[in-house]
Every structure is written in C-alpha cells, then in structure tokens.
C-alpha cells in the first residue's frame, strides 16, 4: 500500500510556540522557582544579620574588623547551589511531562535553557541591587557583608551583576548536564558524570602541581583580573550546554 497516496496531510492549524510553552511551564508554579528560594534567602540573611548584631554588641573594636572579616562571607553561596539543584530538578520534574504534552526534545531543551538563563539573570540583578544597598548602608548598619563579598571584586555594581550572572550560569550548566544525564541514564548517568568530573579536577590539579605551575596559574588569573577571569566560565557553560543536549536528544519518557 502506498503510504504517500493514502496518508492524510497535516491539518493546517496554528502551531503554538513550544519553546515559549516550555519556558512558561517552568514558571507556572512560582512557589518553587521564586517564593521558596526567596524565603530561604531571607532567612539566611536574617540569621547572618543577627550574628553580626551579636558580634558588634559584644566586640570592643567597633565594626572595622567585622567589616573586613565578613567580606569573605559564604552566606550568599546558597543561591548558587540552589540554582544547580533547580537545574537538575527542572529536567527531572518537567521532561516527562513536557514530552507527554507533545514537546520535541529540542524545543524542550531550548525552552528550559531560556528559563534557566532568565532566572540566573533575575537572581543576578537582585543580587546586585542588594549589594548596592549593602554598600550604601555600610553593611546593613552593622558592617556585615553578604552580597558585596570579596569574590566579586570591586569593579562597581554592574560588574558585580555580570560576574554573579556568569557564576550562576556556570552552576546552572553544571546542573543542566547532571539533569540531562539523569533523565537519559538515571543514576548511572549521574555517577558517571561525577566520576569524570572528579578525574578532570584531580587531573588538572595534578598537572599544575607536577609541572610546578601554581605561580603561573596565579599570575594568569592575576593578569586577567575579575573582568577577564569570570567570562572564562562561559567555556564550561558552552561545553555543558552542548553535552546536556546530546544526552537529552535520545532520552525517552520511561520512568
């Protein structure tokens, strides 16, 4: 039987934009993507602020020492890890669902990527605004630091937003790859991913240590400065994004 002769052609209905549909799908329940991390973040901030208060009340030398000390605060790191988790979960939560709703893997990946980039940008901007407030209020009135920490340099608020955004993209890409590997090969995918990642890290460290190049590495980043170093994160981001797509391209909805 001749298929071409008998097959009914595709009906001519308007096609919804599925990349946009997937994008919106990630935000349809704002509890997970916004209210929960904001709540946790607020709580962490409150805890930190209370600790600063206790320290400043009991310390004798005023706020000077604390202001210096808290620039090394790791409290803000929570949101980066959160983004990693969100990226992993985004995949695992919505892939089967979107496929069930007829999204192609390609559209799903593009929509998810767009959603993650937009959330990273949103968080980076919020981070930047809070950093400006922190500077303006002299560390929330107590000389504390959470958003204007030393890791993001002192190139001004806009540069800080850019660096934070790049670091967020890095964690997001890490989560994206891990999520895609999990969707495709379940636990084995994740274990394999971390084994390879571990070997790459150890290999890199071994290479630097054995060739006695720590000083060279230091001066490399020193020359680049924050403005030059942070964009280097885009390399692993690009690799991760590509790997994630390759893994997801042949993933199925089996659970």
């Amino acid at each position, binding site marked *: *039987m001749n*298929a*071409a002769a*008998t*097959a*009914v*052609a*595709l*009906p001519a*209905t*308007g*096609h*919804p934009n*599925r990349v*946009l*549909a997937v994008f*919106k*799908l990630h935000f*349809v*329940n704002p*509890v*997970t993507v916004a209210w929960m991390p904001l709540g946790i973040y607020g709580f962490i901030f409150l805890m930190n602020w209370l600790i600063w208060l206790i320290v400043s009340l009991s310390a004798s030398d005023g706020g000077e020492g604390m202001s210096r000390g808290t620039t090394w605060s790791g409290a803000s790191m929570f949101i980066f890890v959160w983004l990693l988790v969100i990226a992993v979960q985004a995949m695992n*939560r*919505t892939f*089967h*669902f*979107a*496929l*069930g*709703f*007829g*999204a*192609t*893997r*390609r*559209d799903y990946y593009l929509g998810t990527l767009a959603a993650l980039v937009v959330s990273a940008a949103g968080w980076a901007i919020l981070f930047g605004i809070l950093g400006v407030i922190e500077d303006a209020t002299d560390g929330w009135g107590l000389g504390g630091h959470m958003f204007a920490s030393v890791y993001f340099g002192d190139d001004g608020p806009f540069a800080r937003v850019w660096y934070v955004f790049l670091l967020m993209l890095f964690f997001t890409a890490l989560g994206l790859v891990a999520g895609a590997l999990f969707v495709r090969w379940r636990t084995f995918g994740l274990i394999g991913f971390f084994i390879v990642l571990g070997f790459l890290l150890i290999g890199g460290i071994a290479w630097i240590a054995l060739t006695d190049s720590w000083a060279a590495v230091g001066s490399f980043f020193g020359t680049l400065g924050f403005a030059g170093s942070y964009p280097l994160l885009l390399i692993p981001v690009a690799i991760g994004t590509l790997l994630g797509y390759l893994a997801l391209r*042949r993933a*199925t*909805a*089996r*659970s």
Partner: protein
Amino acid sequence: MNAIVEVQGLTKRYGSLAAVDDVSFQLEAGRVYGLLGRNGAGKTTLMSLLTGQEFATEGRIEVFGKSPIEHAAVLDQLCFIRESQRYPDDFEPRHVLRSAEWFFPDWDAAFARQLVEEFRLPLKRKIKKLSRGQLSAVGVIVGLASRAPLTFFDEPYLGLDASARQLFYDRLLADIAERPRTVVLSTHLIDEVADLLEHVLVIDRGRLIVDADAEELRGTAAAVVGPRAAVDAFVAGREVLHRDGIGGLATATVHRLSEAERAEAVGAGLELAPVSLQQLVVRLTGATESEVVNR
C-alpha cells in the same frame, strides 16, 4: 481509505525482550480504536513509539505522513494520556491545565472547566496528594479537552469510580460526534468500552494478533454448546479458542465461524451463543505457549 497512521514491521527491543515485535497496521481518521491485550503485552510501548517518545529498533512509523520523532508539526496533532504519566512534584491540577493550553493548539479551556466540575477534581491540591482516581481524572480531562486529532488513552481510568467512567464514555462519545477525531483506547475493562470501539487491535507478547472491525470480530466468534460428542465432532479441525464442560455437556469457543458453518452447527443440534469482545480477547490472549503450539 484515510490512513493517518502507517506502521510497517515495527519492532522495539529492550535487550533480548521484544516489547513490540514486527507489527504492521494502519489507523484511519475519525475512528475509535481499542488497543487490547494483557499487562506487559506491549500496548504502552506501542503508543510511546507512535507518539515519538520511544525510538523504534526496526520498522517504519508514519503519523500524518511523517515520522513522529522530534517533529513538532506532527506532535501538535497528538495527545498521549499515559496511565503512569509523571507530573512535576510541585504541580497542582490547575498548573497542569494551564500549561495544557500552551501546548495543545485545539485546547478548549471552557470544556476543561466543565469537566473539572463534573469529575469533581480539586484544582488546588498537590498532584502527589490526589487519589488514584483523581489523578486519572486529570489525564482524562487533558485528553478530552486537548481535542487532538489523534488522542491516545492508556488505561485512562485506573481508580475512577463507575459513575466517573460512565461520564468519561459519555463525554468522549458526545465530543467526538461533534468534532470527529481518532481515538486509541487501551484498556482492560473491555466489556465497558465494547460499544464504543469501532476497530480492535489485540496485541499479545508484542505481536499484533487481531486487527479487525469490532462488529465483524463480534460476529465471527461463537460459543458452541451441546452434548460433548456432538460438540467435539463439530469443532474437529476448527480453530478452538477455549473448551469447557460439565458432565455430558460441552462448550467450545470457536473463532471465525462462517454463516454456513453456523447453519451446520444448528443442524447438528448444537446451540450457538454469542461471545463478548472481552471473552474473545481473554480466550485469544490467555493461552499458554503450549496451547498455542497445539492449536
């Protein structure tokens, strides 16, 4: 012929297991199909293949003239309601219905609202906390309101009570009468849907063993009842699906009985009883390996 689905020599293997084994068939526009078979027969795998969620090992699938794999224009026309559909953990039914609107071009939000009302589905409760029946209702509502030209329902009413199931049949019938589309219904409750089905596909151990018009199928099988000797004499050399008997009385379910053969049976003093679709499928798929060989 209006074939919207063309399947040729389709095989899907998981390791050494052939979940779908060299299957060929067509689906025509505007009909209601029953995809029947036992657990693990390959029904879900077959539907996953047709909707581009699984990749075929061998064979050819054309849905609306194209492979469904990664083809957005084809996938737009499909809706696949899985019995084991996973929803994002943090979703509530309202989130599912909202996003359905973005994915299905023919989505009817008013119809969906009406169905929510009728199925008494709580909209603001975590999907995880829904009862099995309510979870099925989510799928049924999406499947009906999507109005996709080709809709697959895989065991859509697990846990649904009798009135909810009746509601599903009623709404489905009324809606496809108004807006003809192709529906593939996979189910174990064959008697309940028998009147709905226009065409039946029976799959067993991955192989398609029946591909027939439902009316025709019901007409061809019969239970021959009478004295054991007479029944035995009549069925000798015929395709017997099942035998049963008490004392001197015997019943034999015979497949593919022509008009002449029916007359012959009646002439031999035997009684002919109709066989329901469910009984027929049970007989066809209930056989063990040895029975099949001896048949």
